[in-house]
C-alpha cells in the first residue's frame, strides 16, 4: 500500500495536484456574488437611506434593487420570498392606515417602520449568505481596514455560534441538576440564577476562547506579513451597476430629506 502511494506520487502526483488546483479554481469561479466591498458600501448607503424620510416610490426602488442584488448571487428563490414579504407588509400597512381603530393604527405605524428597514435586512442577508468569511476579510483588507480589526472581526464572527452553543450546554446542565431558569426563579433568586448560569458560561467560554486563540496562533494569525487571500476580487459591470444604482437612490433621498428639512425651516 505504502509503496504504491510513493511510486504513484513520483509520476503522477504533480499532475493530479494541478487537476485539483483547476477544480478549486473552477468552483471558485462558479461562485457569483456582488463584490463584497461593493456590498459593504451598499450596506452603509442603505442604512443612511433608512434614516431619512423618503417617499414610498424610493423605498420600493431600494427593496427591488436589494432583491436584485440577492438574485444576482443566484438566490432567486430567496429574492422572490423577500419581495412577496414586502408586498404583504405594504398591503397590511395600507389596510391598517384605513382603519380608525387605535390598535390597527399602531400596527400600521409599526409596519411602516418595517418598510423602511426592509431593504437593509435584504442587503445584510445577502452579505451574510453569499460572502464567505475569507472573502469578507479580504474585502476589508482591500478597503485598508487594519489587520487587527479584521482579525478581531473574524474571531468575533466565530465567537457568536460558540457562545450560543455553550449557553445551551449550560442550560442543559442546569436542567440536569434540576435548576430551572424560569421566570419565577429569576424573580425570586436573581443572584443565584446569575451565579448558576453566568459563572459556568464564562468559565466555558474562556476555555473555548483559549483553544481558539491557540489554534489561531499556530495558523499564523500574528504574522507580520500583509494577509493575502485565496479569493480574487474583481469589480465587474454588475458590481458597478448595483453600486451606482444604490448611490443614486441614496443621493435622491438625501436631497429630498434636505428639502423637507428646509421646508420645516431647519436649513
Amino acid at each position: 500500500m505504502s509503496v504504491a502511494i510513493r511510486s504513484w506520487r513520483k509520476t503522477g502526483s504533480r499532475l493530479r495536484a494541478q487537476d485539483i488546483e483547476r477544480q478549486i479554481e473552477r468552483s471558485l469561479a462558479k461562485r457569483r456574488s456582488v463584490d463584497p466591498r461593493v456590498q459593504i458600501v451598499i450596506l452603509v448607503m442603505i442604512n443612511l437611506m433608512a434614516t431619512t424620510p423618503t417617499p414610498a416610490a424610493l423605498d420600493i426602488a431600494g427593496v427591488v434593487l436589494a432583491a436584485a442584488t440577492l438574485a444576482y448571487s443566484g438566490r432567486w428563490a430567496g429574492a422572490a420570498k423577500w419581495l412577496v414579504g414586502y408586498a404583504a407588509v405594504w398591503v397590511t400597512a395600507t389596510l391598517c392606515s384605513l382603519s380608525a381603530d387605535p390598535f390597527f393604527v399602531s400596527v400600521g405605524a409599526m409596519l411602516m417602520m418595517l418598510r423602511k428597514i426592509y431593504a437593509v435586512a435584504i442587503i445584510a442577508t445577502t452579505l451574510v449568505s453569499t460572502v464567505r468569511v475569507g472573502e469578507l476579510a479580504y474585502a476589508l483588507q482591500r478597503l485598508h481596514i487594519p489587520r487587527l480589526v479584521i482579525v478581531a472581526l473574524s474571531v468575533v464572527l466565530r465567537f457568536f455560534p460558540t457562545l450560543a452553543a455553550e449557553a445551551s450546554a449550560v442550560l442543559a446542565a442546569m436542567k440536569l441538576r434540576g435548576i430551572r431558569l424560569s421566570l419565577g426563579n429569576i424573580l425570586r433568586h436573581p443572584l443565584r440564577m446569575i451565579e448558576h448560569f453566568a459563572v459556568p458560561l464564562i468559565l466555558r467560554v474562556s476555555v473555548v476562547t483559549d483553544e481558539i486563540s491557540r489554534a489561531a496562533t499556530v495558523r499564523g494569525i500574528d504574522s507580520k506579513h500583509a494577509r493575502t487571500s485565496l479569493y480574487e476580487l474583481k469589480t465587474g459591470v454588475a458590481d458597478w451597476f448595483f453600486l451606482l444604482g444604490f448611490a443614486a437612490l441614496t443621493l435622491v433621498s438625501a436631497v429630498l430629506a434636505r428639502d423637507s428639512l428646509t421646508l420645516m425651516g431647519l436649513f
Partner: protein
Amino acid sequence: MPDLTPPALAFEDVSFAYGALSEQKNPTLNNINLRINRGECVCLTGPSGCGKTTLTRLCNGLIPSFYEGSRQGRVLIDGIELGQWEMDELCRSVGSVFQNPRSQFFNLDTTSELAYGCENLGLARAEILRGVAEAVETLGLQDLLERDIHDLSGGQRQLLALGTVCAMGANIFVLDEPTANLDAAATQAVKRTLQRLKDLQKTILIVEHRLHWLDDLVDRVVCMRDGHIARDWTAQEFADLPTDTAAGMGLRRWSLRGLQFESQLRATPGEAGAGSEDAAGASSEDAAGASSEDATDTSSKDAAGASSKNAARDLRPLDIQADGLRAGYRPQEDILKGLSFLATGGHAVAIIGGNGQGKSTLAQVMAGLIRESYGGISLNARPLSARSRIGSVYLVLQESGYQLFGASVREEFEIGLASPDAGDQAQIADLIQRFGLSGREERHPASLSGGEKQRLAVAVGVHAGARLLVLDEPTSGLDRANMRRCADEIRRLVQLGCCVFVITHDAELVAAACDQVIEVADGRVRSAYDLSDETLPRALGVLAPGYADDDVMAAANAPPREAAFGIARQASLGIAR
C-alpha cells in the same frame, strides 16, 4: 558514517516551568533529552499532567509566543534553536492539530479553511492554491472540498485540520490527542491519513492515551512521567512488553488482543442488595491492584452495609424499558428511529456504536433533555414523561465539571433536586467518602481534578435519588489510572443498586466495568447481549474494528445473537429471563 541531517526535533537538557524555574521544586519539564529524526513517527504518552502537552508547545512555538515561562536547555527544530525561529516560519514548518474539533476552525466552508493558514502568512495566491491542492491530493481530501464545516463529522474535521497545516507546508506534525473524541471508523481514517504523511517522510509526534490504534503506525513510544522522559521504546520493544509492565507505568493497552472481560458484577435481578456485597469485595481487590492512589476504601464491610442502608430507599430491582423511541431535531430526520430495550438494575450496560448512530441522543432523551416524539421510557413499568425523568435518570456529561454549580463540594449536594432526605448529612458524608472525595468537602468544585469532578457529579446524582445513571464518554482523554478509577466508580454505582448506562468508544473501559452491551446502529438497537469472554470479541469488533484478531472480526460480523437481557429489535418487548 555519521548522519549529517539534523533531527527534526531535538531536546537537549530542556527544563521548563510556566513561572520562574528557580522558584519551583517540580518544573513542568525536567531535564528532557529527546531526538526525533526526520520521517519518524513517535507516540508520546504518560499519565495526565506529566508534561506531554507542554513538550508539544515547545515544538510548535506556543511557548514562548502564547505561554510565558522560563526555559533551560536547547530545543532544536530542524536543527535551529527555537528562539531563533521566526514565528511565521515555525507555523509553516510545524503543523499542529488539537484535540477538540470545535475550536480549530475560523471559516464556515472547507475550502477557505484549507487556505486560512496560508492567507495569514501572506503567501501569494498561486502559492496558496498550490498548497491547498497538494494538501488535498496528499491526504485524499477531494470529498471535503467546498463543504460546509457544520456538516462534517468529528473525524472529517480532524482531517480538515490536518489539511490546513499540510497546505501551509508543514514537515513536522504535532498532534495532541487527535482522536480523543472520535469513534473507531474516524480514528481509522485519521490513521490512514497519518500513514500517507509518514510515507512522504514527514515527521509525526502524536500525544495519546489510547494507544491501540497506533500499533502499526508509530516507530517509537516515549513515556513521560513527572516532567521527565521515563522510557523510550521502539514500537517492537513496546509491543513485546508484558501488559502488566505497561499497565504498571500507567499506560493503556498497545493491543486489544488478550483484553479480558473483567466485570465481576453479576448481580442477579431481584437480589441487587445481596449481590452488591460480593461485588464490593471483588471490585475493591481490583481497585487496590489498579490504582493505588485511589484513597477510597470500598472494601470495608461497614461501608457496604451502610451503603445498602442509605441507598436502600428502594432496592427493588429497577426495570428500565424503552419502547419504540423516536426523537431528533426537527425538521431533520429523526435520529432515534424506534429504539427499544429492556434493562435491569444492578448492571452496567455499555452503549456502543459509531458516531452519529444515536447514542448521545439516546442519553439526552433518557435524561429528559430532549422529548421523544414517539414511544416512551418506563421505570419499573411506570411510564415517565421527559420532564419527570429529570431526577430519576441522571446524565453525567463528558465534561462533568460543567454540571457542578455549588461553591463547595458539600454545598453541591444541596443544590437543585431535593430528595426527601436532601439534608441528610450522614448520607452526604457517606457519599463523599465512597466516591473518594474525603478531605475535599470545603473545596470549590472548579478546583478539583477532572476525575474528582466526575466523581462528584456522579455522587450528586445518586444523592438526588437517581437510580439510572447515564455516563456520556466518561473516559475520553483519560489516562489509564483515571480510566480504572472510572471503572471502579461504575462498579460502586452498581453496588448501590443503580443501573448504569455507559456511552463509550473505550474498549478497555467496557471490558473493565460493563457486563452488558447494547449496540446502537442507525437509531435502533442492533443487538443486546450479556458481556462474557465469549461475547467480548463481538463488542470489540464494534469498538475497534481493524485492531482485533481475525477471529474476533469474524465473530463481530456474525449475525447478532439474541439478546440475553432484553429483546431489542422489535417494538414489542419481551421479558428475556
